[in-house]
């Protein structure tokens, strides 16, 4: 039987009267490349924050690698890596200093930390500016550094909140290659992205959250079959997403109102 990497039961989070996440039951198997999709404000980042210990749930449980996050936060955090919303970088350090800081915070010994930090900087092509502060990095460089920091301790689950946002095509290629290698060695990757083409190309399984509720979950084939039956074999993820989330015609912008622009 396949090991379960992430398992949530009735996971909820309220902000005042708003149900940002409303009783979601997620199940992600170990080694899956899992895409977590939803429109703006659907609850994606709130879910990731809860799963990584940055936000406490209002109710529900979360098990990561068989451990309850609420009861064993330190043990769970040791095995996960995160690129959070906003990246969480300490901007007054250089890239190398930041990676060394993170490595040591995860309890790696000094020599290992230094070796891995140097290798990651080289891989991410950030080694040519050793004295540049992170505050002076471009957005794409910061994204690459945040990813390097998230993997320095060799996590078993990697959470990525919009990892490709602002990253150029060259860097995105390198990141995808890195993520592919991690999947090969059994890492579970939990990714949110607005770029559905990327999710479709990388992820084997997908869940869609809408207004705080999980509205679809499964492999891409299962979602296609669920939407269009046997005829929908060539349905794209974008079409699936729109058919699930954008069913309400009132939510679609009406171009005819902008006739002066045509």
């Amino acid at each position, binding site marked *: 039987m396949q090991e379960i990497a992430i398992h949530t039961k009735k996971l909820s989070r309220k902000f005042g009267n708003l149900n940002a996440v409303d009783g979601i039951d997620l199940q992600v198997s170990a080694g899956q490349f899992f895409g977590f999709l939803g429109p703006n404000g659907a609850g994606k980042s709130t879910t990731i924050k809860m799963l990584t210990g940055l936000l406490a749930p209002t109710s529900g449980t979360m098990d990561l690698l068989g451990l309850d996050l609420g009861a064993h936060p*330190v043990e769970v955090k040791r095995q996960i890596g995160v690129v959070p919303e906003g990246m969480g*970088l*300490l*901007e*007054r350090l250089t890239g190398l200093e930041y990676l060394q*800081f993170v490595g040591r*915070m995860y309890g790696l010994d000094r020599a290992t930390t230094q070796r891995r930090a140097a290798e990651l900087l080289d891989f991410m092509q950030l*080694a*040519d500016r050793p004295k540049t502060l992170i505050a002076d*990095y471009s957005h794409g460089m910061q994204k690459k550094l945040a990813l390097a920091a998230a993997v320095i301790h060799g996590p078993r689950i990697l959470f990525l909140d919009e990892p490709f946002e602002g990253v150029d095509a060259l860097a995105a290629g390198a990141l995808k290659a890195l993520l592919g290698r991690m999947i090969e060695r059994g890492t579970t990757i939990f990714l949110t992205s607005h770029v559905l083409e990327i999710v479709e190309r990388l992820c084997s399984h997908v869940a869609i959250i809408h207004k705080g509720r999980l509205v679809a979950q499964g492999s891409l084939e299962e979602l296609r079959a669920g939407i269009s039956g046997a005829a929908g074999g060539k349905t794209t993820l974008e079409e699936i997403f729109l058919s699930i989330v954008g069913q309400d015609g009132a939510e679609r912008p009406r171009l005819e109102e902008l006739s002066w622009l045509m």
Partner: protein
Amino acid sequence: MADVAGRAGILTQVRLVAGLRWRMLRNGLRKESRRLDLIGLIFAGIFSAFLVVGLSFGFFFGTYKFLSLGRSGWLSLFFWGIFVFWQFFPMFAAGFGAGFEFRTLLRFPLNLSSFYIISLAYGLADFSALACICWLVSMTFGATAAKPAVLPAMLLVVTLFVLLNVTLERLVGSWLERLLSRRRTRELFFALFILSMVSLNLIEPVTRRYGAILRPLGQRLLPYLSWLPPSLAGKAIASAAQVHFGGVLLACAGLLVYSAVFSGFLWMRYAKQYRGEELSETAAPTPIAARTVSKVDEAPDHLSALSPQVAAVLRKEFRYLTRNSFAFFTLIFPPIMVLIFSEMFAGRRTPSQHPVSPEMLFPGIMAYLVLILMAPAYNCFAFEGRGIQAYFMAPLRFREIFLGKNLLLLSVLAVEMGLSLAMLSWRLGLPSPPIFVATLTAIVFAVVGQLSLANWSSLNFPRKLEFGQMRGQRQSGMAVLIAFAAQFLFGGICAVILFAGRLTENRWFPAEAFTLLALAAVGGYFASLDALSRVAEKKKETLIEALCR
């Protein structure tokens, strides 16, 4: 085909920019959390109105008097006052008011001359410009009332003076905008600004010691000021009062030359902006000739006695301290202030008639150092920004974070106190052993005792601060209150114990009492760390929300 907008007239654009300024001010006040700002602004408005109206009367009567009494040469002083206010006030105001980068207007369809004119109009709508124009108008009325014949000259001089000032103010402003767009320059400028403010304390001792040398030097420099714009404006009016039209023309020609030169520079500055000046400071991609490979540092680990997490936090805190130019520069000040205090209040070389003995001054100075250096500890996450998330993502308890942060603070305190101690022993000599030991143990008690409170305050009342910025940099009111109360409490306990030692004539009693209290404080500190870790877990959302804004 989409419609294309017609060209907006220059007057419409000026009106729109003025409206933009007003809306920025109004919208800034509409936020509920800035209600106090509104009250402050009302008070500032009333104060400003009194300042402008009151000084307008002053300028009117002063000008009237000078011209009536035949002392028209003194009018230069008024022009100097106005000039200094016009040029310096906007610089201070820019640090605290609503931010607006004027060059952002360049995204709109403006030609260079429109951009230039709008800039001058924008400069004229500034508070300092409006106030100065009021004062110049008052001077014109005063001069006309005293000698109606000087009115044409006054109008000419005031017009030129306004043009010159607004042009210079925009020129300086545009250069500042360019310089401050770079993070490093901004931080350096901020540090220099604070240093210059603190250095005002040195004026009194310096003038007392070197006044005799500086005065003749200043007098020798005075004639050179007569070629500067305010003196020329004053000279023009004085010449008009003496019906010496050659002098009026010469002085006005001087003002015109200054205006032309400043206008030329401003035009060149704006032309550069108009062509698309690059002010970004992010690292631009550069072609990599050969792939760089990072070197692994093989130096020995000097912090190997600490846990990896505590050592990592300590290193990070040290780097943050050295890169926060303001915080780093402020560390220079306590020993300097100790030197000034020892110079002013005590010592063998002071002329003071009632020198304070080292027995009193030593504990007092050390209390001052604790007061100054402990203050940042009450909002110790202020500069983490989004990096605060790194602490919550890492597999550790918050006690390690506090240990690392507190350790650096203690190291800084030790260095500062060591320097001050050396300074005091050089200037005054050390106090008696009972007072010396009592003071050192009192420091341990007061500092370690405060650390637990400061850590708790940092978790409960976090407020984000930016490196090298003046705008919007305010500590949480509650954190300030807690810091004040804690300092008062610990200072009070120390004072009572020292006083009890004097009263009982038991010279070693304070040292013994402080040793016991210090031990209790150290025990309490370590006991509080686990409780604080739990508080951090509960407060993480507040912390992340406050610091990730």
